[in-house]
């Protein structure tokens, strides 16, 4: 019964000292608000990062060589370079050992790396097509002629482009510029084309080597990829789905672009920019008039209009020019000016011109620099520092369902592990065989036995090639080697891997299973170590941890402040209310009663205001859970794992926050309450006039 009276007195005291209550209350409410909102936010981010990481690359646990030089970070180092984690010799034996653990569902072998690819410019593209046409079984004379006309037109365009500007282009020395001029003029002459068919190989070579580089566009594509067992990868990452093209057939070497990357980095630059502008106008409500970012993209499109006109043939140029003049209501004769005018878009005409691009221009240009079905020349620096190359067919693009727009989940493209091993000079039995074959045919004295990289390393390059081996023969064998398009499952599973994703039945057991794997590796000499997905995600895994830490420091400070203020105000209350407390004690209240009085007062304060703060925070979280927080840039998109972050309210968070409030109440009460308990009933006798 006394509790009720205590609560009544406490509550009335709280209301009596309104100012004090308000100040402490606002700080408490702010702390609780921040705790609920902040934690929901960080949990949203880390949850998004967790699922987009674990379900696209890391799995629940990653394993890699215990003798690795670096710590595994699948996303590479901060500067983007891959980490050197060495390799583990046999996937098969590791997998067999791990699968004995009933918690482990599956193990997917991997090797992540980084590549830069130059898929060639538009002229390279046309020349490649022409080369194929010459080689095809039934040569179509008309088709070849039209292709030749197309190439000649392009060469003229290039010449036009450079006219009077040779000197301006700093990349070329005066001598080179003069030579380039001569070469372009040569291609412009009838003579060059008259004997083209009879001397096709040389003519194409000339165009590829001397003319194509004059386009001067930097076409390099940079990307991360993961070499794996594509079939297993698809099965074990259930969100995996093919978007364009087809899945790499089983046992076949091949490459799949991540669709996000493909659409953002491989797509025709002007088209890509138009897409981005449209998206930003829609999602972020930006306008061309107000956004510097969008204006810059329009500017870049105008500057790179060559990306369109160099890709159009004469007839196409004619058609597009007509339609453009009609669209713009002009009669511009110069196509390049016309194109530039068209590309200088504003808010009023953007949508119309955007639609025009896809309807009238896109069909004539190469929308993706690498197309499905193309062969991608992947090169890599092996561990020994030498360069190897593998040509690999692009079968299609894929994405992870529900992470379509997550840059994190879109980080890796996929290829087969066998090709990756080859790129990095890990020998397979089949390769050793082939090596010997090449060795014999080329008549090389000694090709390194352990690494294919030795084939092209400087140590062997200086060795004599016996005259009987003609260059063509080597080329032929080279083609055969890199295009050795199939592999056996055995070859894949028996070979080396760099790291592997381990999936668990129950992800809450991650820590336990990591321990078990590490113990197993020691006892069975597997030579591996296991780390959690956070560790494997490197700085990305650390980031969520850091965010939580920073947030908690903020919340901690605001609650500490609230706690100190409560303590201070209670202490003052104890001193001001000496007589009241003394009276209570004299009348017969035990010291415990006084303690309770103070405790209830704080409890009342913290629950009331903590509750208000938590409720406001929860309300905002629910609203933001419905509406979504739009990502306002690439960095935000990255953290949000998509264009919007949807928060979820975790009811246990509210309980946790309220529990923290009670703890603060308890802590803040101790000292003042102790002081108040010490107040003697004699204080009641103090005489006051």
């Amino acid at each position, binding site marked *: *019964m006394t509790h009720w009276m205590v609560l009544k007195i406490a509550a009335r005291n709280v209301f*009596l000292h309104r100012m004090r209550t308000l100040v402490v209350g606002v700080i408490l409410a702010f702390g609780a608000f921040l705790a609920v909102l902040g934690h929901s936010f960080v949990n949203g981010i880390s949850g998004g990062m967790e699922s987009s990481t674990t379900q696209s690359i890391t799995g629940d646990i990653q394993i890699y060589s215990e003798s690795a030089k670096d710590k595994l970070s699948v996303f590479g180092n901060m500067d983007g370079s891959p980490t050197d984690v060495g390799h583990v010799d046999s996937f098969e034996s590791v997998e067999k050992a791990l699968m004995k653990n009933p918690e482990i569902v599956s193990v997917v072998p991997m090797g992540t790396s980084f590549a830069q690819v130059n898929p060639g410019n538009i002229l390279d593209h046309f020349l490649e097509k022409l080369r194929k046409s010459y080689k095809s079984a039934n040569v179509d004379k008309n088709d070849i002629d039209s292709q030749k006309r197309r190439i000649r037109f392009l060469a003229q365009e290039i010449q036009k482009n450079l006219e009077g500007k040779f000197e301006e282009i700093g990349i070329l020395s005066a001598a080179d510029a003069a030579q380039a001029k001569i070469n372009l003029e040569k291609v412009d002459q009838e003579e060059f084309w008259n004997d083209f068919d009879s001397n096709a190989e040389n003519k194409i070579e000339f165009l590829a080597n001397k003319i194509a580089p004059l386009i001067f566009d930097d076409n390099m594509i940079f990307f991360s990829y993961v070499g794996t067992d594509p079939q297993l990868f698809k099965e074990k990452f259930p969100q995996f789905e093919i978007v364009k093209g087809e899945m790499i057939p089983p046992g076949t070497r091949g490459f799949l672009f991540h669709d996000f990357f493909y659409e953002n980095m491989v797509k025709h630059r002007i088209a890509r920019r138009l897409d981005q502008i449209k998206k930003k106008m829609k999602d972020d409500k930006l306008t061309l008039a107000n956004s510097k970012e969008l204006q810059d993209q329009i500017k870049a499109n105008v500057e790179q209009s060559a990306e369109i006109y160099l890709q159009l043939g004469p007839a196409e140029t004619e058609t597009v020019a007509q339609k453009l003049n009609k669209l713009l209501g002009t009669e511009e004769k110069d196509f390049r000016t016309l194109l530039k005018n068209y590309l200088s878009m504003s808010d009023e005409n953007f949508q119309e011109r955007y639609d025009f691009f896809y309807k009238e221009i896109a069909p004539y240009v190469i929308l993706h620099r690498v197309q499905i079905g193309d062969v991608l020349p992947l090169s890599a620096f092996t561990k020994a520092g030498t360069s190897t190359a593998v040509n690999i067919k692009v079968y299609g693009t894929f994405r992870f369902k529900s992470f379509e727009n997550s840059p994190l989940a879109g980080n890796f493209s996929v290829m087969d592990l066998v090709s990756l091993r080859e790129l990095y000079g890990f020998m397979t039995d089949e390769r050793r065989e082939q090596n010997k074959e090449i060795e014999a045919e080329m008549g090389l004295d000694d090709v390194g036995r352990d690494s294919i990289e030795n084939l092209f390393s400087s140590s062997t390059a200086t060795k004599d090639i016996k005259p009987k081996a003609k260059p063509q023969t080597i080329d032929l064998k080279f083609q055969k080697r890199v295009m050795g398009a199939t592999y056996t499952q055995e070859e894949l599973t028996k070979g080396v891997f760099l790291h592997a994703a381990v999936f668990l039945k129950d992800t809450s057991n991650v820590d336990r299973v990591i321990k078990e794997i590490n113990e197993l590796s020691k006892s069975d000499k597997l030579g591996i170590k296991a780390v959690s997905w956070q560790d494997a995600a490197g700085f990305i895994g650390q980031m969520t941890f850091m965010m939580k830490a920073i947030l908690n420091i903020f919340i901690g400070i605001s609650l500490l402040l609230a706690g100190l203020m409560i303590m201070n105000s209670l202490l003052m209350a104890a001193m001001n209310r000496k007589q009241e407390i003394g009276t*209570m004690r004299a009348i*017969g209240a*035990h010291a415990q009663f006084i303690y309770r009085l103070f405790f209830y007062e704080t409890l009342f304060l913290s629950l009331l205001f903590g509750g208000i703060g938590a409720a406001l925070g929860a309300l905002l979280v629910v609203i933001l859970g419905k509406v979504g927080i739009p990502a306002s840039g690439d960095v935000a998109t990255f953290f949000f794992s998509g264009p919007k972050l949807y928060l979820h309210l975790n009811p246990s968070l509210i309980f946790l926050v309220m529990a923290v409030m009670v703890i603060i109440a308890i802590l803040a009460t101790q000292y003042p309450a102790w002081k108040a308990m010490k107040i003697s009933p004699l204080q009641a*006798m103090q*005489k006051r006039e």
Partner: protein
Amino acid sequence: MQPIHLENVQKNYFLDKVQVSALKGINLKIDAGEFTVIAGPSGSGKTTILNLIGCVDTASSGKVVVGGKETGSLTEKQLTDLRLHTIGFIFQSFNLIPVLNVIDNVEFPLLLQNKQSPKERRDQVMRFIDRVGLTQYAQHRPSELSGGQRQRVAIARALVTKPQIVLADEPTANLDSVTGQNIIDLMKEINATEKTTFLFSTHDHSIMNQARRIIRLLDGRIQE
């Protein structure tokens, strides 16, 4: 058995390292139902005696027996219980709890005792409020009452537990003479009907004269 019995009680305290003797060997017995005044000039030890009897202070030497219990041998908790169940206090400055209304203030010691059902308690509270003539002010806060009314509330609070002893330290000092007289009349009336032992201090002669027994104090000694 007297409710109050003091035997050779001395009380010393320190004031800036100088020992001061407030009481110099007090022997005192007060019978049940007495209406006694402790009189004397300021600093004569009136309040000190009341504090010792009220169990809010302890003697330096000697024996203080209150309600049959020797206070020197009791723990802090037991002293508190003794105050709660045996003694009622009336203070010079009323000492009501400001955030509580009249009913809650009067009910306060009953709640601490926690012996009755809420209904019994409420009835008793209302009876005592009626007794001090404040029924129509039952819902008022102390700040909304006059000095005399406040002291009536304090009397109701002191009496509501039906204590053996009521101690009042200069209960009329903060009141004008008419109001003070009313308060004394009320105390006398209750003393007559409830047989409660009253012990109060005053230096007001007009009030002193109304007591049945006067204990005169001078320099810590009884002059009687």
